[in-house]
């Protein structure tokens, strides 16, 4: 039998109560949880994309730095080579100059020593000549005049031939 009574109003109240309970216990928590999870996933994806972009940027930056460093190293090497070549030339030039100086000094020294030896030889010869002349003449010729004469003779004649031969 169909009969409309207070069950109708009670059913409306029950339904509204059930709607409130399910909203509180089911729809709101579930939808909030799903929205939060979606946000978390979205955030994670964005972070992953950002990380990927950052990594790509860092890679580009490192590659640029590496290329720059490589260029700088190449420049340094080239500069070092040029500098080395310049230094080598300078050292060679200095060594050449020093060798020339040493050679000139050695020659001057040799010339001085030869001059000294020659003078010493001449003194010896003068002495020998005087001694020989004394022995031949039987008298002492050991005077300053004799010595000067012998010295002049040597310088003018005998010594010049000896000097030409030796020099």
């Amino acid at each position, binding site marked *: *039998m*169909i*009969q*409309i*009574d*207070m*069950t*109708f*109003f*009670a*059913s*409306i109240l*029950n*339904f*509204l*109560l*059930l*709607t409130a*309970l*399910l*909203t509180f*216990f*089911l*729809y709101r*928590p*579930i*939808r909030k*949880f*799903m929205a939060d*999870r979606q946000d*978390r996933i979205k955030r994670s994806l964005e972070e992953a994309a950002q990380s990927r972009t950052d990594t790509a940027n860092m890679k580009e930056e490192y590659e640029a730095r590496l290329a720059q460093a490589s260029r700088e190293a190449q420049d340094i090497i080239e500069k070092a080579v040029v500098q080395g070549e310049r230094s080598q030339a300078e050292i060679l030039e200095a060594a050449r100059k020093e060798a020339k100086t040493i050679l000139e000094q050695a020659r001057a020294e040799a010339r001085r020593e030869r001059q000294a030896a020659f003078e010493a030889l001449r003194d010896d010869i003068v002495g020998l000549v005087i001694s020989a002349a004394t022995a031949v003449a039987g008298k002492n010729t050991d005077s300053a005049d004799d010595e000067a004469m012998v010295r002049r003779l040597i310088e003018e004649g005998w010594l010049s031939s000896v000097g030409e031969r030796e020099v």
Partner: protein
Amino acid sequence: MTNASSEIGAHVMLRIGVFTCHLDTIIMTWIVMALLVAAAVIASRRMKDVPGGFQNMVEYGVEALWGLVADNVPPRARRCFPVIATLFLFILASNLIGVVPGMKSPTADINVTLALATVVVGLTIYAGASVKGVWGYLIGFVKPNPLFLPLNLIELCTRAITLALRLFGNIFAGDVLVIILGKLVAYAVPTVGQAFHVFIGVLQAYLFVMLSIAYVTVAAEE
């Protein structure tokens, strides 16, 4: 209190003064409500980011209902969703509980289905008035001209009545069918009847909700 349950479709009546109500329907409604609230509490407790079986099913259901409401009533989806989702869950649970031996579908009572239809009419009026404004919504009843006012009012009432009678008729008939088949044949056939009752229960819940959404959508159209 009087018991008239020996007759098919009869109810246990509770009299409070001059008022009467169907005690069996009220109790079955409370049982359905308790089951739904318990399921809701279990579903929303300790939710995990990677959902398991039950949580997955609940999430899918809530998301599907939300999609249904949001697609059809975009301006008032947040307000309409709890009512429409509860309509579906309550009608579905009420229809299916009648399959359990000893239980009776609350929706096999015209009072319940009429109450649900009244809620739908209320929701329709709310959606229309909130989108168009109260005056704009009321003006709609005298369009295309004031002569249509009675027809439009009858149409509004008819929608509620057809919703209520369709659900009541199908579920009541299903309950009667299950009882009669159970009395006529002892084995197998009642099971087929119950399976058919389950199918009808799901179908009617879906139909009721889809028609409700359609009414609300029409009312909320600019």
